[in-house]
């Protein structure tokens, strides 16, 4: 492969070239090279900050009316200029097509008004501290109004899609690869690579083999057992980094369930040896935690640690005895192959619960079955879930989302937090409310946090690539060394 081509191996093919219609992180990881957002997320510091992208600056006084100034030197891949009309179009199209997966992306936006070709006004539906979150990431890629409307149909447009990103669409061979070419007219300068190839290699061992033989430069999701071999080879390196995901047990609290008794739930929490899980099951590529959002997420609660002190099997046994729950059957449902070592983690948890005298059982389900059961609330007493791809801890609060995951858990204080957070006068107070929410939920053991997993990539030694917290793979982030 020519040294000016960057080849990336993902675990699955992109679902769509339509940025508003995939709801899939790894698809977005590819599409960020093609489309731009108004703003950018920057996770390089302590916590998330927003940086300019196609919007150079923004202002709001009331968190209702927002004014964005746009770059005036941006061209679409077909050469036409990018303007505020395109932003308005993108927002309205997404809102207007109910079949799009990201149709709810801009749900808080009431209207978008073009003030001038390079200035747009966005009016939200009441105070919205999180507007910037919705303008970047999955579903927020900007589309050209003129070209889209000129195309015969949506499908026709996405046969040869147009964005403003550093790379232009060349071809998508379904289930095989997406090929992108450098956009020599890119507003950010000359792209570093002449061509980007994103390959779909679902089988992990094949992905690793392809990476080792130099067939791809960057391979995502390297299994821990292959790390030693890759690190030992001077031609390859392993890159691991924190990501926006946490693994937690979601617990059923309704009357009649084995985990209805808070003592039992507390015992479960205490029974789990999180440091051991992190070290042996995922070979150290995760941080033990009781928390629900990793540090870089606004609203992260530093009190919910997962160190050795959280592990107290003796106390757990006492609690079980107190609750009279010795030998109670508790079923843990887990998906398989969805998150790194998900089944193995669940197996280990079951082992810990057996250690404290519960009759713990494991139910491993295929992902689609798992999802169907989740939606009809038919999973076991607990299930393993790895929520991810969030940018703010506030997604914990809305009842409408919570109902999908912990429908039987209610707490008067917690239920009031959603409104309180929305009305919080300052960001500081808002974050405090979010932390409180996590504390309440973890104390109730409605969710029992386990790990913050890391992403592990294989990266060719001739390339430097650090990996991103949001798991996007912008080719500009990879450089020849």
């Amino acid at each position, binding site marked *: 492969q020519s040294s000016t081509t960057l080849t990336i191996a993902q675990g699955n093919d992109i*679902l*769509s070239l*339509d940025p508003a*219609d*995939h*709801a899939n992180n790894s698809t977005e990881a590819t599409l960020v090279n093609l489309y731009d957002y108004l703003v950018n997320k920057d996770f390089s510091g302590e916590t998330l900050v927003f940086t300019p992208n196609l919007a150079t600056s923004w202002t709001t006084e009331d968190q209702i009316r927002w004014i964005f100034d746009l770059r005036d030197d941006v061209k679409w891949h077909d050469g036409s200029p990018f303007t505020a009309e395109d932003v308005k179009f993108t927002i309205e199209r997404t809102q207007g097509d*109910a*079949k*799009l*997966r*990201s*149709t*709810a992306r801009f*749900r808080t936006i009431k209207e978008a008004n073009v003030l001038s070709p390079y200035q747009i006004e966005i009016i939200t539906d009441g105070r919205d501290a999180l507007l910037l979150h919705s303008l970047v990431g*999955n579903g927020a890629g900007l589309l050209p109004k003129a070209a889209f409307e000129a195309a015969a149909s949506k*499908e026709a447009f*996405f046969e040869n899609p147009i964005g403003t990103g550093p790379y232009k669409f060349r071809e998508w*061979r*379904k*289930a*095989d*690869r997406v090929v992108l070419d450098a956009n020599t007219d890119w507003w950010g300068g000359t792209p570093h690579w002449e061509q980007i190839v994103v*390959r*779909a*290699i*679902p*089988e992990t*061992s*094949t992905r690793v*083999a*392809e990476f*080792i*033989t130099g*067939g791809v430069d960057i391979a995502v999701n390297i299994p821990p057992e292959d790390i030693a071999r890759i690190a030992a080879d001077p031609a390859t390196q392993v890159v691991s980094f924190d990501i926006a995901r946490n693994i937690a047990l979601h617990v059923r609290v309704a009357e009649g369930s084995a985990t209805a008794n808070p003592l039992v739930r507390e015992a479960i929490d205490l029974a789990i040896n999180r440091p051991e899980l992190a070290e042996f099951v995922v070979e150290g590529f995760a941080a033990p935690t009781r928390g629900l959002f990793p540090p870089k997420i606004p609203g992260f609660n530093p009190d919910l640690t997962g160190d050795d002190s959280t592990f107290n099997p003796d106390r757990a046994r006492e609690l079980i005895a107190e609750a009279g729950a010795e030998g109670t059957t508790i079923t843990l449902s887990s998906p398989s192959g969805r998150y790194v070592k998900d089944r193995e983690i669940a197996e280990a948890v079951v082992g810990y619960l057996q250690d404290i005298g519960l009759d713990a059982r494991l139910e491993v389900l*295929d*992902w*689609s079955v798992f*999802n*169907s059961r*989740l*939606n*009809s609330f038919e999973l076991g007493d607990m299930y393993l879930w790895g*929520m*991810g*791809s*969030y940018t703010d801890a506030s*997604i914990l609060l*809305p009842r*409408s*989302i919570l*109902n*999908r995951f912990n429908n039987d858990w209610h707490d008067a204080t917690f239920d009031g937090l959603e409104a309180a957070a929305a009305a919080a006068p300052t960001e500081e107070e808002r974050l405090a409310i979010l932390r409180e929410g996590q504390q309440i939920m973890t104390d109730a053991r409605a969710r029992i946090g386990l790990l913050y997993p890391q992403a592990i990539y294989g990266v060719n030694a001739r390339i430097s690539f650090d990996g991103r917290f949001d798991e996007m793979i912008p080719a500009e982030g990879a450089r020849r060394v």
Partner: protein
Amino acid sequence: MIIRALGRFVLQAIPVLYIVSLIVFVLVFLTGDPTAMMIPDDATEADRAALIAAWGLDQPAHIQYVRYMANILQGDFGTSYRYGTSALPIVLDRLPATLLLTFGALVVALIIAIPAGIIAALRHNSAVDYTVSGTAVLFKAMPNFWVGIMLILIFGVWLRWLPVSGSGSFAHLILPAITLGTGFAADLAKLVRASMLEVLGQDYIRTAMSKGIPDRVVIFKHALKNAAIPTVTMTSLHIIALLGGALVTETVFSWPGLGQLIVQAIYTKDMAVIQIAVFVITIMTLVLNFLTDLAYRLLDPRIRL
């Protein structure tokens, strides 16, 4: 004669397609609501309800089915939930890769199985014969993905002779074709051996030998052609199985065939894609059956269509 056969073919195809569509509809419907797989983690219940309504999934099953069939009759095969685009091209896109792999596997199988089967039959009950039979059982018993990964490790990683995965060139086809072809070759070799043995015991082979013509003429012209019919039957059954996609092999080699698509579609309950994929497979199956009948006719003049 051909016209009548074609007529019969169509008459056979319509009820099968109808039964297939009905079974698939019921099965997919039973797997539940596809929207759960479509929405992001931070979607609300209302978002989900809106999506359900947008796709018309809130309608009762029979209404969905009637609407589905009505659309088909108008040439609209539906939209993929997963890809958000028309389902037919999604399926047709995968066809070339599937056909190519099927063809490759077939070539590998025939190249291995026919000589092996013939030699085993000619050296009946000899060491060669036992070796062929033993190897056949072995290949049949080896899981596909194991063979595939081993081939990758040996020829891709270790020897670096062939590309590890992907598609696009002849070199890419070799390993997946071998992976699929060997299992098939095992079955086929046993069959070729058995039918050759049977044919070699026939009177007309004795007649051919009594003419004093060379052995190769007896074997290839007189015997092989007669032994070909069961071979063709099995080959066509195998092709049918492969047309549905060789999921495991496709996954191991990142081969963009139908198998992966169908499995993904099933996982995501992507009704339109499953329906069309199954339709396409059914039609190809029926076409293949038809071609097999034609092949019988070519091989054996006694068989009429």
